[in-house]
């Protein structure tokens, strides 16, 4: 049988996903496949478009490769838009020719709506949809001050963030009385507005633009219907999207009243040989402006072409969970309570900046929708209640109350029905996961590769893990707490083995208690345990191969394979002479310098072989290693304290230096950060540190288990008005208990939250010595303090250790050819991928 011609118009997210699905079906061999894309570039991830401004390139965002298309014999025509469809002759036309089809799939997406305002054709009026649009915005923003986004919806706020990241003063102008009118209600919108203004984006609601004219102080001036105006250098229109249905219209396919190509459940249009998927398609009078429904259409389409009679698109959930300008926003189902009889429960904490609303059914049994602003914590649980129509608990308000006020814990995986959707990107239900486990998948990794769950946006990772763990446990599979395939033990158990049996090398440990040769999970973990127990040099022959590259070379590897160097600057206090030395060394080796967030100076761009020489010079000037590379104590940040500050009540700098000197070099399950503030104004931000110390009239208050980073957590007040000695012995105990019992890569916050009994238990162990190990913990810490050595000092003095720092052992003079540099703001930096000149 001769092959049929399948033509796909549009090489966007959905068009590409359709091809990926189609090549997995037997039907792929029935077709000669041709794809036309109007854009110059291969399909890319539009959802993460904004990352283009934070350094991602087209190839980072690309969804496939030209090789992939070639391999599957798909004829890809980029930069070749289709101009006409002749349904009679079954051909599509482009400026370059005519191509016959038997089946035609339209995946033309949508285009940004630009409101008909006089002056909107100014070259500095732009839109936000394609990589080319972003190039235009970048060019327009060069050297100017202000940018306005017209439209306060999801995409508008994202565009505002982009303008901000380009260094512009950003404004959002919205016609409606609130932000995100589609997803949020009045209170939610108001809170979002407040939060966004706090981060410096100005929001103007209820503003209708009447014209755009030349500006006085900036390029443009927007005049509003209420007589007010705003001056700006560029305008990005983000006032909604419209389905790209031009081709379909002109060839006479059925089109919805407000646009969109009408399709049935099989994604077929009014012409049985023409189909439409993604944002250009109108199903049941609905356009779906999100990627997941488009992917579902793509899957349906592939099945339909594969002859599957059952395949049908049956609608999609439009719930969204986002972080906009750093603010959590969630909207689920019927968020506005439009279902007849619907009732709402609201929780509004203006102090914390949390707004939560649940929309429940008339009988109070089901969750119909929800709105969250400020904290998406309850989102996963609420979504499951809504999607799976699970009966609400007796007092449904507990679902949105904070936990301390009786809030309900998250919905356990058992409560989810088989049909519960776990991963919406890949349409994986709890039933699919159970099926995969029954078919032999014995761990999370296997379930992931079998079902593809959690390999899209990644938003479902936590939920997937709890479901898999619970299902495995139910089947009697012991969910392994083993650190990896080489040791049947947790980190804590390994710690005990090492300590109790006096084991000093990895080889002995794996020979006696493990199997195989180790890996990049267990080796660094054991190295850290050995360091805590015996404190030998990280580059001792037995330990060197265990370390992560940063520890091995005692520097942080950068994206181009060079290293950064961070000397210790205890408490952030540094003499002018030492500053000069840093400057001299940086100049001599042409290093990029930057002040870090930890009150010290980072020197970037050193090659492997330069590291020992640089350190020789730094050590001669009195510097020590800063352990920026290690899972170890990093910095003790300080404020200037009573020595200078008129409010200071204790010498915070002195205490910070004392603490940094005491705990420097301490290896731990994860990095540890401290800060000391000289009074309650808290300029050192001590409450966001693992160990935070705040001076009082009578001594020191100690806070523990805080951190910044991915999941910020305020430290908990642990003890008050401690003397210097009490402070040190309390910290000794907390840290040593952490180092001994935490899991690998677990920071103090997560460790404490996972201790049975939490903070209270930790207080009992440390302050009341409930386990009777207080003295032992202090002694252990004391012995580590006594055996401290500057790792770099030992290394530069030892020719054997220095050997390790040769870039190419047989060619000392050879420079790594891939390290290419350019200048920016008077310093060197690595060239970007897009700037690399062919060798």
């Amino acid at each position: 049988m001769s092959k049929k011609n399948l033509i796909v118009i549009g090489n966007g997210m959905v068009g590409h996903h359709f091809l990926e699905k189609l090549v997995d079906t037997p039907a792929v061999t029935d077709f000669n496949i041709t794809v036309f894309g109007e854009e110059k570039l291969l399909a890319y991830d539009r959802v993460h478009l904004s990352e283009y401004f934070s350094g991602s390139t087209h190839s980072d965002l690309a969804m496939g490769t030209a090789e992939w298309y070639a391999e599957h014999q798909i004829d890809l025509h980029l930069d070749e838009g289709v101009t006409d469809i002749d349904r009679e002759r079954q051909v599509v036309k482009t400026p370059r020719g005519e191509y016959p089809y038997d089946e035609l799939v339209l995946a033309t997406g949508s285009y940004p709506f630009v409101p008909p305002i006089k002056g909107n054709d100014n070259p500095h009026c732009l839109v936000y949809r394609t990589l080319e649009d972003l190039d235009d915005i970048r060019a327009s923003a060069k050297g100017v001050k202000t940018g306005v986004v017209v439209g306060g919806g999801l995409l508008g706020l994202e565009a505002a963030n982009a303008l901000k990241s380009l260094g512009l003063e950003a404004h959002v102008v919205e016609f409606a009385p609130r932000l995100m009118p589609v997803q949020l209600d009045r209170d939610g919108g108001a809170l979002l507005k407040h939060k966004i203004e706090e981060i410096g984006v100005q929001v103007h609601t209820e503003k209708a633009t009447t014209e755009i004219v030349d500006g006085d102080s900036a390029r443009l001036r927007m005049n509003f219907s209420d007589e007010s105006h705003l001056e700006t250098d560029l305008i990005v229109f983000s006032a909604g999207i419209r389905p790209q249905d031009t081709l379909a219209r002109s060839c006479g396919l059925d089109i919805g009243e407000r646009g969109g190509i009408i399709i049935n459940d099989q994604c077929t249009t009014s012409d049985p040989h023409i189909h439409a998927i993604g944002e250009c398609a109108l199903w049941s009078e609905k356009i779906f402006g999100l990627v997941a429904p488009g992917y579902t259409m793509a899957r349906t389409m592939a099945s339909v072409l594969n002859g599957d009679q059952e395949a049908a698109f049956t609608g999609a959930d439009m719930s969204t969970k986002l972080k906009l300008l750093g603010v959590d926003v969630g909207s689920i189902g019927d968020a506005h309570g439009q279902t007849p009889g619907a009732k709402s429960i609201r929780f509004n904490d203006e102090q914390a900046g949390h707004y939560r609303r649940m929309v429940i059914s008339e009988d109070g049994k089901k969750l119909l929708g929800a709105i969250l602003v400020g904290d998406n914590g309850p989102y996963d649980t609420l979504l499951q209640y809504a999607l799976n129509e699970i009966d609400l608990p007796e007092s449904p308000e507990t679902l949105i109350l904070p936990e301390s006020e009786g809030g309900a814990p998250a919905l356990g995986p058992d409560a989810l029905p088989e049909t519960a959707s776990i991963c919406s990107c890949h349409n994986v239900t709890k039933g699919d996961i159970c099926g995969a486990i029954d078919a032999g998948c014995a761990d999370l990794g296997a379930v992931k590769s079998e079902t593809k769950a959690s390999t899209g946006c990644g938003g479902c990772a936590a939920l997937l893990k709890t479901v898999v763990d619970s299902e495995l446990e139910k089947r009697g599979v012991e969910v392994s707490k083993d650190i990896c395939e080489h040791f049947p033990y947790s980190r804590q158990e390994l710690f005990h083995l090492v300590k109790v049996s006096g084991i000093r090398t990895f080889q002995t440990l794996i020979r006696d208690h493990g199997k195989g040769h180790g890996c990049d999970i267990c080796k660094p973990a054991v190295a850290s345990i050995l360091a805590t127990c015996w404190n030998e040099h990280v580059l001792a022959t037995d330990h060197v191969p265990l370390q992560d590259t940063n520890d091995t070379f005692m520097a942080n590897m950068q994206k181009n394979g060079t290293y950064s160097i961070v000397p210790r600057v205890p408490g952030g206090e540094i003499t002018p002479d030492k500053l000069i030395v840093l400057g001299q060394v940086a100049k001599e080796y042409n290093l990029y310098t930057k002040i870090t967030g930890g009150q010290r100076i980072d020197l970037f761009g050193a090659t492997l072989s330069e590291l020992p020489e640089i350190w020789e010079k730094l050590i001669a000037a009195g510097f020590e290693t800063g352990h920026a590379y290690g899972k170890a104590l990093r910095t003790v940040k300080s404020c200037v304290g009573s020595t200078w500050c008129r409010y200071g009540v204790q010498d915070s700098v002195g205490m910070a230096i004392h603490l940094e000197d005491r705990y420097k070099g301490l290896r731990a399950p994860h990095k540890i950060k401290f800060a000391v503030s000289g009074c309650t104004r808290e300029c050192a931000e001590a409450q966001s540190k693992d160990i935070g110390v705040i001076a009082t009239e009578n001594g020191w208050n100690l806070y523990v288990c805080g951190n910044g980073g991915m999941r910020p957590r305020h430290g908990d007040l642990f003890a008050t008005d401690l003397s210097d000695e009490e402070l040190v012995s309390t910290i000794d105990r907390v840290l040593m208990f952490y180092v001994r019992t935490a899991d690998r890569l677990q920071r103090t916050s997560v460790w404490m939250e996972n201790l049975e009994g939490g903070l209270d238990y930790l207080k009992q162990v440390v302050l009341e010595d409930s386990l009777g190990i207080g003295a032992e913990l202090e002694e252990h810490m004391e012995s580590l303090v006594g055996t401290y050595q500057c790792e770099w000092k030992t290394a530069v003095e030892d020719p054997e250790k220095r050997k390790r720092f040769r870039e190419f052992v047989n060619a000392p003079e050879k420079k790594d050819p891939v390290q290419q540099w350019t200048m920016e703001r008077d310093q060197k930096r690595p060239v970007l991928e897009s700037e690399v000149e062919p060798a």
Partner: protein
Amino acid sequence: MRERASWDVVCTVDDLIAESGVAVWTEDGPVAVFYLPHRLPALFAISHTDPFTGKNVLARGITGDLKGQPVVASPLYKQHFNLETGQCLEDETVQVKTYPVLLDGQNIRIEVPASVSRTAAA
């Protein structure tokens, strides 16, 4: 162009680091030589270039074994490569070049493929 493959001396036993890698420069570009004394054979040579980033770093990764295969983890983004075959464990479409390697007295020799031209590598 050269006619035949040759076994070039790239370093000596003293240059190697047990259970880890070192980088050498060859006519075929940068190569990572690993020495895993607890295995047989104990020597492996693969390209030093991380295929995911194009940077020359693989010799600086952690070695070990996964499901019985000897591997190194890229120090940049931690993908694993089979030291015998060069196959990436996380992505079946990615493979790094491998080189035959042998111990000749104190010398480590690598077989550089015949197609490498001297001028290009210089």
